[in-house]
């Protein structure tokens, strides 16, 4: 029996070691070990891949600027799955992670938020927008911060934008009911819509295993909606666009950051996404110096245009870097020392990033202004 257990355990370990890992940078004892996880495979792999690539780009730039390995970076695949992110977290912790860019997606992050808090490792998520990543009803994860907007922010900003810019008058919402991110955005959107007097004529939902959205689309059409709000990820959104087109229904589609990545899917007819609005803090075609530099470097390295997830990750690494510099901590400090120092920095500093000028609240929520972009000719253009 004992032997069997030993065999099983060693098998488990071998599997853990064989799991997908990406690394960058190697250094000495002053090097800070920065970890993170996200979906490198699976339905949301565009996000994880972009986060990983952009964070690595930032790490390499910083190391070059410092003339030594300031950061050592390790990124684990969690498939955006709450059951897999604790494993990824375990691997990172065993590796000796001192600060973290947390998880890429909300669902995966909710499963490890308590661990990050209990282990006192500073965590800054580029794109996990659920508020549960930074606080719960009765507890503030004081060492957990966000670069992207929180779900409530996105819902509120979307409703305000649709109302103020007259995108449409009758709104239908189709959201994913078994996803915290989607439900979170939808709920705050509805509250804000009621507040500003935006009429919601239909609300439909679906679950992850559904592939048929035609009934929801038909119902939105029958309700006379001229805007369809999609607080969901790009995979089902692409299906919804295709099915709506097959029915001859052509409303304005309005999404939030989850829609980013819709243009990069294999076989998807990007013409269908023409005219789709999405609320995002980053547009790759912007002309400010930081964006141009980032987009060029990213394109040179990976041959693709980064999404806002990439921009958020790039900002996350730089924000941590600036805070570390300001606090004067390095790899010789323990994770907990770094954590306390960074909490002090983040709650007081102002960070100039790709995605805007950001400040953070004690809860870890970011404050910066959202921009709406519209998809034109297969690219993102600022909508105004």
């Amino acid at each position, binding site marked *: 029996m004992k032997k069997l257990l030993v065999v099983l355990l060693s098998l488990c370990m071998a599997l853990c070691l064989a799991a997908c890992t990406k690394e960058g940078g190697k250094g000495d004892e002053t090097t800070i070990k920065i970890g993170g996880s996200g979906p490198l495979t*699976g339905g949301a*792999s565009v996000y994880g891949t972009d986060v990983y690539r952009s964070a690595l780009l930032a790490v390499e730039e910083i190391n070059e600027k410092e003339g030594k390995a300031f950061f050592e970076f390790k990124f684990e695949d969690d498939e955006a799955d709450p059951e897999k992110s604790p494993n990824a977290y375990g691997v990172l912790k065993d590796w000796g992670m001192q600060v973290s860019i947390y998880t890429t997606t909300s669902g995966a992050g909710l499963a490890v938020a308590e661990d990050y808090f209990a282990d006192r490792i500073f965590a800054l998520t580029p794109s996990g927008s659920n508020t549960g990543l930074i606080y719960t009803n009765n507890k503030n994860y004081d060492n957990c911060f966000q670069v992207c907007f929180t779900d409530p922010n996105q819902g509120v900003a979307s409703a305000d934008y649709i109302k103020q810019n007259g995108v449409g008058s009758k709104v239908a919402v189709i959201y994913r009911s078994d996803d915290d991110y989607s439900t979170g955005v939808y709920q705050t959107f509805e509250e804000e819509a009621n507040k500003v007097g935006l009429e919601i004529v239909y609300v439909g*939902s679906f679950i992850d295993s559904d*592939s048929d959205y035609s009934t929801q689309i*038909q119902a939105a059409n029958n309700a006379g909606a001229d805007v369809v709000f999609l607080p969901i990820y790009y995979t089902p959104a692409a299906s919804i666009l*295709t099915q709506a087109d*097959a*029915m001859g229904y052509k409303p304005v589609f309005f999404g939030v950051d989850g829609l980013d990545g819709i243009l990069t899917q294999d*076989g*998807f007819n990007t013409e269908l996404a023409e005219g789709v609005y999405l609320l995002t803090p980053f547009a790759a075609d912007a002309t400010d110096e930081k964006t141009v530099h980032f987009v060029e470097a990213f394109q040179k390295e990976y041959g693709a245009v980064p999404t806002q997830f990439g921009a958020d990750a790039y900002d996350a690494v730089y924000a941590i870097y600036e805070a570390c510099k300001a606090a004067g901590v390095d790899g010789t400090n323990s994770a907990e020392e770094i954590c306390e120092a960074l909490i002090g920095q983040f709650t007081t500093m102002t960070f100039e990033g790709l995605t805007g000028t950001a400040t953070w609240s004690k809860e870890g929520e970011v404050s910066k202004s959202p921009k709406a972009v519209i998809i034109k000719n297969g690219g993102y253009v600022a909508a105004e």
Partner: protein
Amino acid sequence: MVFLSYLISGIGLGSVYAIIALGYSMVYGIAKMLNFAHGDIIMVGAYVAFFALNRFNMPVLLAILLSIIVCTALGIIVEKLAYKPLRAASSLSVLITAIGVSYFLQNFAQLLWTSSPKFFSSIVGNGAFSLFNGELSISYINIVTILTCIVIMIALTLFINNTKTGRAMRACSEDKDAARLMGINVNKTITITFAIGSGLAAVASVLLCSTYPSIAPTLGSMPGIKAFTAAVFGGIGSIPGAFVGGLLLGIIENLAKAYISTQLSDAIVFAVLIIVLLIKPAGILGKKVNEKV
């Protein structure tokens, strides 16, 4: 009019279920086993059609034909390798093997094609007929799906009733040992059944993905389970039963989504199934068989 449009898309969805359900039902009727890998054959068919259309720019009919050939071959290989050696084993072993094959195909597809979804472009182009001044619109693919389903159903019924192989199939389903004594090659008949079922799965995959365009390695599991439900609903082992069961399931699902709740639609579908089975345990068109002990 609104009701009619929900009804028609329900019939479209039901037709796909019906074609898939046929695969389950025929195999069950003849080999007395539940082929849970059927849904994954659909997934393979979808990928083959996707690559033929998107990567090699083949004409639509050629792509469908290729997909049918690959699926038929796959069905035969799976049957020969995984199920035939277990013909004398208990039905439980075969069931577990079928689940194993299903997982194997899913994971193999994930290795081969990754789990990032791909997008299938509809074989008939996007668009819809507009009737009654645009009050009712029926998408082209819906019409193609419903027509294909009817054609398959008629062809299969004629095949089963009027050809020698069809008669052999019916004989096998009634009594394998007696059929063998009468000189019927039971093994060959079962292989043919698998081949036909898998070929139909390929057709279903193309229709399914034209309507619901996202392709992933787990694509087959949900429609597979629904179609299996449809087969049980209509009476497993019965071809008209699969047709009726598939259509009813599609219609109930769609109307439940439209008029009751999108979240509860699956619960409603399965509640109806339970009620039907309580009243008529053999399914709507199923034959009542007295087990001899």
